[in-house]
């Protein structure tokens, strides 16, 4: 039977799976960041997610809020760069949205993700099309919302696919935020590293929750 909600344990599994992907694709992410940035996105994300998972293993969170705060704070304090505050804020706001809840149904998950996105927008002031992680995150949440009537797993799978499509769609864009914007037109033709890690974030969510279909 299709699952209708996520537990805190699912969120922890999601974190672990995201960590695995960041470690696995560390070199590839850094390679993307070499082309239009400073060659550290892979090590930033791998280092941060490694710390986040370790923190969760030390102190198991009991609520969505505790989980989000743990992951978010760890990212903020162990990553640095642009991705530290941005991903950190994403998880902090996600957690704050979930609060004391121990489970999230599809609507609540959608709201938490949306809160996370709002946090990233507020922190980074990027707009859609600026060639940032926003361009994977935004479409993912729109797809999630559009599919939420079909159930949690379908919504997650839709978000994953939209994030991947959003990532691919960054390739022809000219960057207007972050380091890649310094390149001007030379940023065109490269996939954004942050959008790529965000696509993995939704890939991890789908796998960790068995929404892979």
């Amino acid at each position: 039977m299709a699952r209708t909600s996520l537990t805190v344990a699912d969120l922890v599994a999601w974190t672990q799976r995201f960590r695995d992907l960041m470690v696995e694709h560390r070199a590839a992410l850094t390679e993307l960041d070499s082309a239009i940035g400073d060659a550290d996105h892979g090590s930033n994300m791998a280092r941060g997610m490694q710390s986040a998972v370790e923190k969760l293993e030390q102190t198991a969170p009991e609520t969505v809020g505790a989980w989000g705060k743990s992951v978010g704070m760890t990212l903020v304090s162990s990553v640095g760069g642009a991705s530290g505050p941005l991903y950190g804020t994403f998880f902090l706001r996600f957690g704050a949205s979930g609060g004391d809840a121990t489970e999230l149904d599809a609507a609540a998950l959608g709201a938490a993700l949306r809160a996370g996105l709002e946090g990233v927008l507020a922190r980074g002031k990027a707009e859609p099309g600026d060639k940032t992680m926003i361009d994977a995150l935004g479409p993912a949440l729109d797809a999630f919302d559009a599919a939420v009537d079909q159930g949690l797993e379908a919504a997650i799978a839709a978000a994953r696919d939209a994030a991947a499509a959003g990532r691919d769609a960054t390739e022809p864009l000219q960057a207007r935020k972050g380091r890649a914007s310094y390149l001007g037109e030379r940023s065109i033709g490269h996939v954004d590293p942050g959008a790529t890690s965000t696509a993995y974030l939704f890939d991890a969510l789908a796998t960790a929750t068995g929404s892979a279909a």
Partner: protein
Amino acid sequence: MKKLINDPDGVVRDALVGIEVAHPDLRVDHENRIIYRREPTRPGKVALISGGGSGHEPLHGGYVGFGMLDAACAGEVFTSPTPDQMVEATKTADSGAGVLHIVKNYTGDVMNFEMAAELAESETGVRVASVVTDDDVAVQDSLYTAGRRGVGVTVLLEKIVGAAAEEGRDLDTLAELATRVNASGRSMGMALTSCIVPAAGKPTFDLPENEMEIGIGIHGEPGRHRVPLAGAREIAEQLVEPILADHDFTGAPAIVLLNGMGGSPLLELYLMYGEVQRILEASGVTVARSLVGNYITSLEMAGCSVTLLRADDELLGLWDAPVATPGLRWGV
């Protein structure tokens, strides 16, 4: 990758050990990766704190000491430090007179310092002011970019505002001075080769033997344009012209920094400086002070940058004031 390191992921940690033992006037908090002056901030003196990714040495740790910074936070290579580090440095360095954060304009640096300032003020009540440097004319300062990068002017600002802080000026005055210095400075850089980020293990970009990058920053990122390799005289023109086009440097004494990116020999930097100064003179710029060497680097990148600061008697006086740091030292 040919580097004098043990472990690509432990470079900053290991280098901080060497910085601490090499400089008895400094103290290193290894857990938080903060470099402090050995002596605590003198009561009444505003503390100056900066920080950023590592790999730009002597920036920033090498500018901690009398007449410049009170503390510097070291991030991973080319990755801004975290708010935790900055909060810790802010609390520790504050003598009660407040703290000025000197931040280079990069998305990561700005966001992390912003979070730090919010946290430090709310958690501890320390008064924090910030200045964001953005002197790099290679980047258009527009809605369509993250804004000009903070590069060479950061060094000059840390020196000048550091001298003013030693005089006992208050936080608002220093913040205003810092803003003025930043607004009066412009830079432009170029690279002959890419650097290698240790954790990446290979050059950030490939540059053929007959080409160079114009308009690079300090993070090994590619520049605005890739052009055919040229001679020093032509390179000097390509660096100085956009600076002079962006800001008026005539009719006032200028401070000039000819900065090496880390991998170019000093012999070449002096040669470049000769070319730069010649162009400046021909353009009616009066060079009052100059600095030639590796002051804000990009690991082992070969190349250089030029920074001009439009000064006045006050700024020159602060520039000439005593300074005693590993990276800049005179008058004491």
